[in-house]
């Protein structure tokens, strides 16, 4: 961290996310990440690309404290994520909005309740929940589906609910792990537009994807991974593998 700060002395703010020489080796000796170092600045839109098994998902698991690195450290602001106690992890996760390829909505809760749950977990009041949930659903254009259950929604709609859930607590960063993997081109375009809009409003975004079209249309920073290593890090990158 100190080394990073000295190398980047022009920056006065801490990076949002900082991977410091991180390696992840599983019990069967398979290497998921190897000596990965990079930083994500506040308000950045960073895409992480790579083949399956390149280490993208491991990277995200480390940020969410779902897994621990074998070597190195991962920082969220000034917090070393993996020095947190189990009871402190929910507080960290409330600052991160997550969107998954398989949506991961709560099947027994309707759209309203799915989003409300995330707010309840963050300790928001009933009044805030009642006013914010319809508002955030309007933002993702799902105002009419507020009382539907996930099984009654299309893939694109489910992903929009997931995005609404991710942004409702106004997190510092949104992590979208292959959010368009299960969607058709129209829905993919819409989801990417929503993510861009969220970024324009000031939220940092980390996006992992396989989709060349998405990356090329974004024209933002691209980190390319191969066999657990960062092989390219371009400011205005394109999908090159």
């Amino acid at each position, binding site marked *: 961290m100190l080394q990073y700060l000295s190398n980047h002395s022009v920056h006065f703010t801490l990076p949002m996310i900082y991977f410091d020489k991180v390696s992840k080796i599983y019990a069967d000796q398979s290497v998921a990440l190897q000596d990965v170092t990079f930083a994500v600045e506040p308000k950045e839109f960073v895409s992480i690309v790579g083949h399956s098994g390149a280490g993208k998902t491991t990277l995200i698991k480390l940020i969410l404290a779902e897994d621990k690195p074998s070597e190195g450290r991962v920082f969220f602001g000034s917090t070393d994520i993996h020095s947190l106690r189990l009871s402190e992890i929910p507080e960290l996760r409330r600052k991160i909005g*997550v969107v998954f390829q398989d949506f991961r909505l709560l099947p027994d809760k309707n759209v309203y309740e799915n989003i409300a749950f995330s707010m309840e977990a963050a300790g928001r009041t009933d009044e805030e929940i009642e006013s914010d949930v319809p508002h955030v659903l309007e933002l993702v254009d799902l105002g009419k589906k507020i009382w539907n259950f996930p099984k009654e929604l299309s893939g694109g709609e489910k992903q929009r609910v997931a995005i609404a859930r991710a942004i409702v607590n106004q997190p510092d960063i949104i992590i979208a792990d292959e959010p368009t993997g299960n969607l058709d081109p129209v829905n993919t375009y819409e989801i990417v537009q929503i993510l861009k809009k969220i970024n324009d409003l000031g939220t940092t975004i980390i996006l992992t994807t396989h989709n060349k079209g998405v990356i090329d249309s974004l024209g933002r920073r691209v980190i390319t991974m191969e066999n657990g290593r960062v092989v390219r890090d371009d400011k205005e990158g394109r999908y090159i593998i």
Partner: protein
Amino acid sequence: MFWVSTKRIIRSGFFNFSRNAFVSLSSILVMTITLSVIAALIFLSAVLTATLSEIRSKVDINVYFVTGAQEPDILAVQKNLRALPEVDTVTYTSSDQALENFKSRHENDQFTLQALSELEGNPLGASLNIKAKDTSQYQGIADYLQRKPILSSQDGTSIIDKVNYYENKSAIDKLTQIIHTAEKLGSIITIALICVSILITFNTIRLAIFISKEEISVMRLVGASAAYIRGPFVVVGTIYGAISGLITLVLFYPVTLWLGRTTANFFLNMNIFDYYTQNFVQIFCIIMISGMVIGSISSYLAVRKYLKI
């Protein structure tokens, strides 16, 4: 915030319960069986206790005194015996009372009565009937009487004619053994059955929560605390317990009514239905609390496994 969270947890628990009707129904069914086993064991143990105490009450020893024994001496013996911690009751029967009892017992036996009238005076001595608190303690009481001969205050001779313990010793010992074995076996079977039923319930609830494994991981990832995730599951477990408890209590009404009628004679005049109605509050509390505690603890433990990420 604590009250808001508690309110949300309880509300969410009720929602989860009603929205997973099939899982709820099957869990309640298994739990009802568990609580029925516990209720049945309560009744069995009551029947066993009543039967054993009935058998115990039939066991006693008599101390017969010589015919010339003075009443104050006998009453002194009674007083000494009552002071012994293992003695439950000591009943004095005077020689006159013994004669009366003998006559009324043989009122249809003219030959015996006639033989009695030909004797001069009362041939029957006074006696003390001793009931111990436990059948195993008769040996000690008999030894006490043997060890410390009770002597007449007038001429210093022993006033005890005989103690019938030694004649009935083998029967009393056998009964004591049976009672102790029955009690021990009863406790072992009760504990084993309760453990097995609790394990079955725990596994059922674990399966019900296994279905929610993915949901729990999503809740973790959106930043819900362990307590906030676990709370609704514990509420659902408690609801399962409460409903199963009520079903069990209702089911046992007709069951005990029927069993009470058919088995009253078999169980030495103990009516199970009367036992149920007379001890309803106690049984209600045992079943309801067992149900809710088993349900909530099972849920608590089952969710723990999925909260580690």
